[in-house]
Each structure stands twice: as C-alpha cells, then as structure tokens.
C-alpha cells in the first residue's frame, strides 16, 4: 500500500506579523501519513494468512504435546488419612519414557496464591547474611528476638513428602540438583545464608524442616517451593530420573507421607513426565491454534462468498449515504 502524502505547504504571506501562526506540518495537521484502506483483498489475505500460519503451528504444538509421556498417580487417599507414615504405590509405564523423566508433586485446593500467603516472606534475609534479622512481612511466622530464617508462611509450609523409586527392586536415583531456576539459586538465595530457628515452635510446626548445615542456595526444594504457584492446583518439580523407563515397567514408589492435605481435603499426586520443546503435555495451545486457524479460513471463505454475491467496487459513490437513502440520513 503506497503512502499518500498530505498536501505540502500552504501559501505563506510575505508580511510577517507577530501573531501569525507559524507554519509547520504538525500544527497544520498536514503530516505525511500512511492511510491504509482495508480492501477485500487485504481482508482475504489477512484471514488466509492467519489460517495458513496457525494450522501448522497448531499441528506442531499438538505433536509436541503428544510426544510427551505423562503418568500421574494420586496417593493421598491410599496413604492417608494419617500423615507421617510410609506407603507404597506401584505405577505401570504404558509407553517408553526417555530420560530425563521429571518427577513432580501436584497439589490441589492449595492457595499458594492467597494474599496472606504470598506476602509472607522476606527476600532480603534470604539473600544477604547481614540482613538475617529482617523479619518484615513475615508475619505470623516471624520472631524478632530469635530471627527465623527463612521466615514467613511460605517457607514454614514447605512440602515434605518424599519419594523413593525402584524398578524391579532396583532403586532408581532421583536427581534433585538443578530443579530450581538458576537465577534463584545464584542470586535470590544466598550461598552464605543458613537456616536458623526454622520450625522451632513459632506458630507450631508447619511443613518440612531444613538441613541447617546447608546454605539456602543449595536447598532447592525450598527454592522451588518459594516460587509461589499462580493457581490453587499446581505442580512443582521434585527431581529428575535420569534413566529411561521401558514399556510395562512397574515403578514402585515408596512415599513418606508427611504433608497434611487431609485437613482441607486436597489431593496429592505424583507425576512422572517427559518434556518436549513446548514443555509438558498440554494440548490446549495446539487445539487453540488449530481452531483459530480454521475459523480464519472459514471467515475468509464466508467473506469471499459474500463478496461474490454482493460485490462493492471500492470507492463506488453509489454507496454514499445520500445515494442510498435519498430521503436523508447517514
């Protein structure tokens, strides 16, 4: 589409007087402007273009999602309703899972996004040894006399179920390194900051305890937990299994059932999943892309049909209101 230029300078008189407005294209509202017209060609092009871009993207997303193998196993009911017990679950692998296989725990009805919960932390004390006494914002899990590190509800309610995997009585190692975001480990949680007074009675015992000899930056479970989830149903990374799981392998999981979800009736799930370039097994994006692409093509079709039935030459003055409704009215 070519840009049509605004009309250039207007006649400026020779006599210069003080109050005469000075000419500028801006002040005369004559800036050169691109005035695109939405012609039928453009409409069809745009819709068809959306269609032919979206459908392949959708197919790619879907196939990525389909490549991902995911097994999830609810265990709160079988292992409950008491905590602090161990139980064993057996999971059959339906399809081959290539390593790395990610191990997640999934909770629901857990409002990690609750306003009271989200705010209850102090980023300063997590990072800097010198600010270890900071308790601001950590209410109610805070103690100014004996400062708690890490303070606040989030840390206090740390998830503490543990899983042990074995296939055919052979233990499978779960790699718990590098499950947190790098920036969290490197910057947000200090390598010189150690847990202090944690779960020592302030507000009772919440969730898990921490190894006081490890600096926070190495407590990756805590770091993962402290990235609060956006929704009440969420998954968090527990670790990685670095061996492949074959079809029909039966994975035995020994669960140390510590975390109390029985009080509020929430589920606990153990999830094993591989990933693709798109992440986890989520069909939504692929479907949405396909649908939108299809809709676009459909609209393009409708538009073409309508346009054939009722063509309107561009700039046809017959469509001006005074020609359409000679009686007046626009």
């Amino acid at each position, binding site marked *: 589409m070519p840009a*049509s230029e605004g*009309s250039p300078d207007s006649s*400026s*008189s020779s006599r210069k*007087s*003080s*109050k*005469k*407005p000075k000419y500028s294209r801006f*002040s*005369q*509202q004559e800036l*050169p*402007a691109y*005035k695109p*017209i*939405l012609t039928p060609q453009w409409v069809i092009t745009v819709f068809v273009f959306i269609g032919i871009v979206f459908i392949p993207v959708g197919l790619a*997303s879907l196939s990525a999602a389909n490549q991902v193998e*995911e097994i999830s196993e609810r265990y709160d009911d079988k292992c409950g309703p008491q905590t602090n017990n161990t139980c064993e679950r057996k999971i059959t692998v339906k399809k081959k899972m290539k390593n790395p296989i*990610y191990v997640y725990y*999934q909770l629901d009805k857990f*409002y990690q*996004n*609750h*306003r*009271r919960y989200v705010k209850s932390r102090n980023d300063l004390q997590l990072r800097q040894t010198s600010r270890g006494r900071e308790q601001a914002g950590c209410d109610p*899990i805070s103690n100014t006399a004996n400062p708690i590190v890490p303070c606040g*509800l989030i840390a*206090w309610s740390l998830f503490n179920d543990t899983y042990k995997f074995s296939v055919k009585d052979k233990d499978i190692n779960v790699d718990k390194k*590098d499950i947190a*975001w790098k*920036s969290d480990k490197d910057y*947000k949680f200090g390598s010189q900051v150690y847990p202090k007074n944690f779960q020592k009675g302030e*507000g009772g015992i*919440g969730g898990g305890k921490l190894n006081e000899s490890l600096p926070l930056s190495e407590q990756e479970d805590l770091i993962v937990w402290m*990235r609060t*989830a*956006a929704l*009440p149903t969420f*998954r968090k*990374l527990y670790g990685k299994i670095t061996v492949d799981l074959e079809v029909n392998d039966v994975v035995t999981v020994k669960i140390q059932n510590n975390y*109390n979800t029985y009080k*509020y009736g929430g589920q606990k799930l153990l999830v094993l999943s591989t*990933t*693709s370039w798109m*992440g986890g097994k*989520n069909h*939504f*994006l692929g479907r949405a892309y396909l649908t*939108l692409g299809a*809709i676009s093509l459909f*609209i393009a079709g409708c538009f073409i049909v*309508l346009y054939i039935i009722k063509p*309107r030459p561009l*700039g046809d*003055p017959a469509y*001006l209101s*005074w020609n359409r409704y000679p009686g*007046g009215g*626009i």
Partner: protein
Amino acid sequence: MAKGKIRSKLRSSLYTFSCTSTPNKAAEAEELQGSVYSRLVYCNEPHQLSYNSNSTSTTKYNIVTFIPIALFEQFNRVANVYFLIAAILSVTPYGPYDPFSAIAPLAFVVGLSMVKELIEDWQRFLQDWKVNMRPAQVYTGHGIFESRPWKKIMVGDIVKVEKDKFFPADLLLLSSNYDDGICYVETMNLDGETNLKVKRALEITMDLDEDNSFREFKATIKCEAPNPSLYTFEGELEYNKKTYSLDPIQILLRDSKLRNTSYVYGVVIFTGHDTKVMQNSTKSPSKRSRVEKQMDQIIYILFSLLVIISIMSSVGFAYLTKFDMPDWWYLHAPDDKNLYNPQKPYLSGLYHLITALILYGYLIPISLYVSIEIVKVLQASFINRDMHMYHEDTDTPALARTSNLNEELGQVDTILSDKTGTLTCNQMDFLKCSIAGISYGQRPSEVELAAVKKMSMDFDAEDHDFSSAVSGFEEEGNAETEGTSNNQDHGRQIKGFSFEDKRLTGACWWKLPKPEIHYIFFRILAVCHTAIPEENEEGDGYDYEAESPDEGAFLVAAKEFGFEFCKRTQGSIFVREADPSSEEPVEREFKILNILDFTSKRKRMSAIVRDEKGEIFLFCKGADAIIFDRLSEDGRTFEKATKKHLSDYGEAGLRTLVFAYKKLEEADYNEWNNEFQNAKNSDSSNKDEMLEDLSDKIEKELNLVGASAVEDKLQQGVPQCIDSLAQAGLKIWVLTGDKMETAINIGFSCSLLREEMQQICISIKDEQEHDAEQDIKSDISKQIMSGTQKMKQEEDPHAAYALIIDGKALNFALDDELKHQFLHLAVSCASVICCRVSPKQKALVVRLVKEGTGKTTLAIGDGANDVGMIQEADIGIGISGVEGMQAVMSSDFAIAQFRYLERLLVVHGHWFYKRIAQMICYFFYKNIAFGLTLFYYEICTAFSGNAVYDDWYMILYNVAATSLPVMTLGVLEQDVSAEVCLEFPALYQQGPKNLFFGWYRIIGWICNGVYTSFIIFFFNILTLYTEAYRVEGQTPDMSIMGATMFTCIVCAVNTQIALSLSHFTRIQHIFIWGSIVVWFLFLIIYGAAVPETSTGSYQIFLETLAPSPLFWITILLVVIACNLPYFMHISFQRSFSPMDHHIIQEIKYYRKDVTDRHMWRREKRKGRHEAKIGFSARVDAKIRHLKGRIQKRGAVMAGQEML
C-alpha cells in the same frame, strides 16, 4: 474581589438573570422607605454614603478561595472522589498495593487540572485589571478635574467624559458641550445597535458646562435600586430645593461610548457591579461537553460494575474465610488485624470489600481525565495555530479559550448568531439605484456573486439536456461575474459607496433622458436626512455622523454624484452641487422648513425645504409599500419599472428605499404649517396623533422619483459560510437588536430568506400596545398557532418557511405557557430571525433552544450584548479583533471572522468529535480488558485480593504501556482530510447524530473489552496450567503467569488501537510500537534490579520468558484471538455496509476524484445536506422553477399535438 461563586452542584442548573438588589447600607434608608426609590446619591459628595466600588471582577477565584474552590471543583468529578478515597485507603493495611501507586497519579491529575484553572483565571484577572485601571476625569473640588483609574470612582462623583471615551459608570447626564445639553451615545456594547442615540440633560443642569461650575454644585438623586433593565430608569433629582423627575434619556450607561460630542459632565449613580451592564452580565458558567456528560454515565456504569464485582468477591471471601479457611492450616489464620478471621467473617469480608474496591479500580481509567485534558490542550493548539483561521487584516489568529468543548464543536445542531459585527461589517454600501424607471449600478451584490458562482459550478455537473435549457440564465450570471471581477480590479474603494455605473458617476447625468428627475433624486439624497457633516482629518472632504449607516451611505453617494452636503445650520442645509453649466460646484442653501421624522410605524421620512428660488418641496423617502400608496395619479409614470427593480434588488439581498417628491404651493404650505405648529405647541394628550395625521395629510399626492438599493455589507465570506453550514445540516438563527426591516434585509443578503419563502411574522401590532397582557398573549398564541397550521397544510416538499419575531412579541413567546408552541414552530422553520431582542432575551432564546430541543447550540457574537447568549449556549464563540473584548472574554472560542466558523466546525469539530469519541471508547475498552483479568484471577486466589501482576506493571499500564498511543489517536487521527471535510459538509452530520459515541458503539467497545479480558485470562490459564513450562521441566509460577498475561494485554490493546486508526503518521508508529518495545525494555531493566526490588520479576524476561517458545506462541495466539472479532467487524462493515467516510477514503485512495472529475463534482453537490437556506438552496429553487416552466411548456405542446 471575586464574588467567589461556588458552582452549584447541579451543573446544568441555570444561573439567574434577576439579581437581588444589594441591601442599601445607607443610614438614611428609613427615610426612603416611604418612597419607591431605594437609592440615594449626594452629588459631588462621594464620601457621604458607601456603595459598591467601581472596580469589577469577573474572576472565578481569588487568592484565598482558589485552593478550596478549585479543589472542590476537581472533586466534583465522581471518578476523582473515588480515587481520592482509594488513595487514602491504600495507606491502610487494606490496600492491595503500594500507596504510592494510588496517590501519585491522582496528585498528578488533580494538580494538572488546577494549574490549568489557575492560568485561565489569571488571564481573566489581567483583563479586569486593565478595565479597572482605565483613566477617567473626576472632579476633585475647586474646579479641577483629575485623572483617576476607573476603580476609584465613587457614587456621587462628578466625571467628565470626552469624545470617543467609554462611560466609566452609570451616569446622570448634567450637561454637554452643546447648548441644548444633548449628546450622542453609541450603545453597541450594550445592545448591539449601531445607530447613535441622543441623550438629553435636564434643562436645569444644562448650564453646568464648565469645569468651574461645579464649585458650589450640590444636589440629591433618589432613584431605583440597581437592576438589569437597560431601557428603564426611574428617579428624581433634587436641586435648588426643587424636584425634577428623571428619565432613561438622561442616563449614560457604563460601556457605552460618547460620540460626536466633545465632552459631557455627569454624576455617578451606579458603580461597578451595580451598573446596568454588569447587572446584565452573568457569571461565566462552566460548560461541559455532551460527550463528557455521556462519559460520566459510562463511568457510572463501570462504577456499578466495580461495586458488583467487589461485593461478589467480598461475599466469596467471607464465605471461604468462614467455612474453608480454618482448614487452610498453611495460612495460619486468624491474624491479629482481623483481615483473615474465620471467627469474624463479616468483618474480614468488609475489610476485603475495601481492598477489592481499590484493586478493581483499574476498571475506572484514572488517566482518562488527564489524558483527555492533555489531548484537548493539544487540539486547542491546533485551533490556535491554524493558518486558515488567521485573519491577516486584524492580525488575529483563532483562539480556543477553553479546551473543554473541543468535541462539542463537532456536534452542533443550531447556530444562533448575532447580526451586526458578526454577519455584517456594520457598513452600508450604496450599490444600485433606479431613477425614472431606469436601473443603474452594475456591480452585483455579494449574494448575486456567490449564487452565480455556485450555479455555474453546478451546471457543469448537471445533466446536459437540462443545462441547455437554463444556459441563458447561466450566461447572464457569467457575464455578471466577469464584469465584477474587472470592476473590482479597477474601482477605487470608497467607504459606503460601491456604485459602479459610468452613466451616473461620470458627472454627465444631465445628458440622460429625464435629467430633471435625476436632479431631484440626487437632491433628496443630499437633503432629506438628519446627519451632521464633519470635516475629515485630511481636510479635503466630510465625514458624516448619521443616525443610521444607511443615511451615511446616501450622503456619500450624493457626494459622489456631485451633491456634497457640506454644512448644517439651525435651519438650513448647504449642498455643493455640480452644475452642468460650470466646472466649479455651486454651494446652494436649502432652508429646512419641517422634518417629519422616521418612525418604525410611519416607515418614511420627509423634509420640507425651500430652495434658493423660493420654491417649496417635500422630499420623501420610505419603504416601498408606503410610498406607492401615496403617489399621485401623475406621479406613477415609473411605478411599474421601479417595482420590478425593487424586486430585483430585494432578491439580490439589498435594502431598498423609495424616493418621491412633491412641489408645494406657498399658500397650501403655510396653511398646513400653521396647523402643524399649533399641534406641535399644543399640550393636549393626543398631540402625537395630531402630528401624525397632519404629516399624513401633506405626504400625499407624491411623484415617484426612484429607488435606492443599499447593501448592508456582509463580512467576507459570510454567504458562502452560511451555505456550507446549512449543507452540513446546521440550523441558523439570527438574533439581532436591529429593527425588523433591517433584520429581514440581512436575512435576504445572507440567503437565510429568499423570495419564495413564506414568512411568518410574529409581532405585536401598534394598536395593541396598551392592551392587557393577557390579550396580547392570546393574540401571539394565535399567531403561532396559525403559523403552525399553515405549515401542516403545506404540500410542496420544497416549501420553506421563515419565522420572524419581534422582541416585544418574543417576550410573550418566551413565556412558560407559550414557549413550547413557539419552539415547535421555530424548529420547523428553515430560518428564524429574532429582531429587536435585548441581550437577556438572546440568552433566553438560546436557553429555550438548548433545553427545548436537547441539541447542541452554538452562539456567536461580537459585542457585550451577546455575552449572555454566548455564556448560555453550549458553545459560545466571540468575534475577536474588534474593539470590545467582552464577547471574547466570555466566549469559549474566539475567531476573527464569521467565515472561520465553517472550518472550526466542519474540519476541527468533526475531527475532534471523532477523536475524542474513539479515544474514550478505547480507554474504557483497555481498562475493562485489564481490570477484569484482575477479577478473574481473584476467583482463583480464594477471593483474597491478590493480583497476579507486579505492582509496577499495574502502575505502568495506564502511564506508559497504553496511554500514549491513545493520545496520538486523540491528537492526530483524521478520517478524511481537511479539504474533503470542507467539500462534503454532510460528513459533519456524523457528529450531531452521534454516530461515534452512541450507546450501540459504547456497548460494543465494552463488550470487546470483556471479550479481550476473557481471552487473555483463560488462554493464559489454560496454557500455563500445571504442566512444565519448558524443556528443563520447571513449572510456571505466579510471576511467569503475571508477566505473560501482562505482555499479552499490552500487545493486544496496542494492536487493537493500530487497527482502529486510519491515519498513520510517523508519530503513531513510534508511540504504538514504541509502547510495546518500552514494555519489553521495562521487563529487562526491572528484571535486572536487585531481587528485593524486582521480587518475582527478577531476571524474568531474559531467563524465563524469552528462551521459552511457549511464551511467544502464547502471545501470538492471544493477540490474534483478541483482535479477530474487531478485525472481522471492520472488514465486514467496510465491505458490506460502508459509512460515508469509508467510501470517500477509498475514492481518495484510488485517486478517483482526479480520474473521474465528473463523478467527484456530482457527489460533492449531492452530498450537501438538503438545505432550505443558503444560496445553494436559492439556486436550487430557481432551477426547480425553471424546470417546472419547461415541463409546463412541454405539457402544453403535447396537448397541442393531441389536438
């Protein structure tokens, strides 16, 4: 200083004209109680009583009241009150986010508006100060007058006013330089009338005409309390132990001007705000545009939405707190502040309501007001800097005095215009005359010129078979056009004389047939008048001080014809006549025996003179109908020809007078004169009637001489402007202080009236004047009814009616009982002319139209008499660059010439309306799209009042991420170019019809906002549900969700605005795409800050979002999905039911206007709104007439063939 006016809460409520009288502080008040007069003035003893000072103030605030009142006004806006409360509450623990993010925007918004108010008021103050410091000569005792500023003048002071100076206060005239104590006054600023008025001092004070005569002067004036009536005054003067009653004729009003008189002395009666002119003034009301009022309603809707969703979330919160929260051990409830207390769910719910009300505040666009204000200031600067509205001669650019009403300019329905100084220049030009049945004067009037131009243009586009039929007409027109253009080049310009005809101006009229008739014609011009000659500054001629500009034009014309009026003495007029027999002019004396004055009833004026030969003549000039009735049998020789000329002149928009004379026999005259003198000296009550009868008796058996045609010179471009405005569908009313005849004449010359229009005149007949009010009222009601009846029965679709109403009748018509009938009649008439209306009536008419029709009114005027209507109308426009500044000071926009109104409305108004309408719609859209995602997320957080976004994102949303593109829309968007706006005035109707801010459109945008919020939220939720976010297995958390969602919003709403623009300059591109870029930059920079500052957003973009394909794919999906429906809407609308501007855009885009000129011109003509006024309508009527004739002829011929 300021009468600190606190704006009433009901903005639309009317200010009242009637002012309560100031309580009289005089100690002598009791003394006056018995009498009707409540004011006491001790002349020459100004310090006796304390009255209002003479300083005036029109400011809204003073130093003390500025802060409280201006703040009060700011918080009159509902939204501001809400944000104030939100800001206060955000300091408490209930606030969902940082107090700074609530207070800063509010302080900015309110501060900016207050600064604007301050600047505006400061300008008003400077203007007042200038007036208050004007010098006046005040008597200080011992025969000395001293110069003092106006504000120091006190009641009782004696002041001396010199020629061409304004009176500083309302004065009682004591004496003037004339022996008979008269003076001439120009009251233009008061009532818009331009003819001079005579004021006369009491005989008893006439001798006080020297500075020294006031040494011993003492007198007492008792008079009425200050009131706004300009034409009445009651009071009495007690002087030398005698009491004399006072009339309005002795009163000199502030803001009128002394003319033609060297000096006068007067006593100050009313000062400052007590003066009649100030009593007439009204405080400038604050005006708000229609769009803004509607915007308020949308804000109310959004408020309701806000309250509803807040209550919903509070109820949800309270429920969950009570029943579920005790089980949520990880929350460790209850807390000590009761914010989350399962034992007290209602209290916690209540606290939460506060949180929610603040959190969802993003539904209400706080930046809307301030953005609109900034946009409007920029728009106003376009008006101020528009070179097409700059008037070279007076060096005046257009000026937008307030920027509140920009978009209102695009919605005007009715224009109410003053006449003198606005439509006309207040200058009469002698243009044509008809003498002895021959018409002279070839220069066409402006009306003819304009019509001819239009016609020749139209015929090019008209069907060819028809054009041949009227070609004769056209040629005539063309010839005339050419003739004029030549004449204009060569003709020397004499003020008041545009006559162009060699036969008369060459001083060889005596060679024409019937030279004696010509001779008499010129003599009548030179002799029959009441003007006074004054030698001009160059000393080579005379200026004439005439009561009306017509007379001045006659005298100038007479001079040009060789009959120069050069001297007037008590009983004679001296005229230098060109003599055919000699080169040198001869000075001749005419003894004035009697002058029979012009009155509106008599509609004629006669002078009985004796020439040097001793012969007595009666010279008479008057309205055609009157004179034709009084012709003798022999005197009707030229009647037919003259009548034809008169009708031509009338059609050409000229005002005409007919001239006649009669020779009197000495004896007859003496006999009549005796009777006349007796009647004059008699004391009988019917003296006036007797004089009238006698005049009637002698003004009979006249001989017709000819007629004159004078052009009330219109301001440049007025007919064209009126024509375009009429085609844009605007109704034009003229409100003038002039008499009916003048007003009608101007109606013709502006093409507001035309010959075939039916005129409905409503007036009070003279004989009714003394009837009971009730009778008059019922008579006027009858007149209105019959007019309405007549229109109902009309069958011709082209028939047009004009309503002409007189000021006195208007008084009754504006009465509560009649005003709706009157309005009903008036709006169905094509044009309405109100004559002899007072300033107050002008305002009342405007109010009637405004309230009665509910449409937008625009009042335009130049004088102080127009202030009332300028203030009352939705938009007031002042004509600037003229002497008085009152109109401009009270106006909303000031332009130098009426003709700029076209550009102001059709171009600027059209654009402004569309820009602001689109801008507001978009604002609501974007805030709903954003605000509702907060609410949806709320539900996911157990209604706890947590936002998924970082605080900084939310601040940024309205400030940087989305507000600048919409402001470029508000400043720069153009649907069609300025030229097209002017060529297709019909496009203007999109504004008055409110096509772009109707509820349909607003709801559409709101729905679009709701849809967008849905898509953004749910697409994000579903994409970022529980599964891994990237190949390394990490799952999304709140900060990823927040940042992704926010990025989607920023991209989607900015893409949306790009879709709704039709005019992209570089600036739009920079702001729209720049906003998106700025957002990403912000994410990077914010992410680089220390973790304590950036919290969850630490390194979010570089580490988390950017490397993840999911992020980019989600954004693409959401942006397309959000904008698809709108894109579909605009493409289908344009393709299958396009609006006018779409088609014109296309025509322009494909240059069809250049390639198919015929079509372009045809459409331009058809695109005009079906106007019944304007010269185009006049041309159309003429064409219809001709077509009708052709058809008739065809029918007759067909009939003959049949036979």
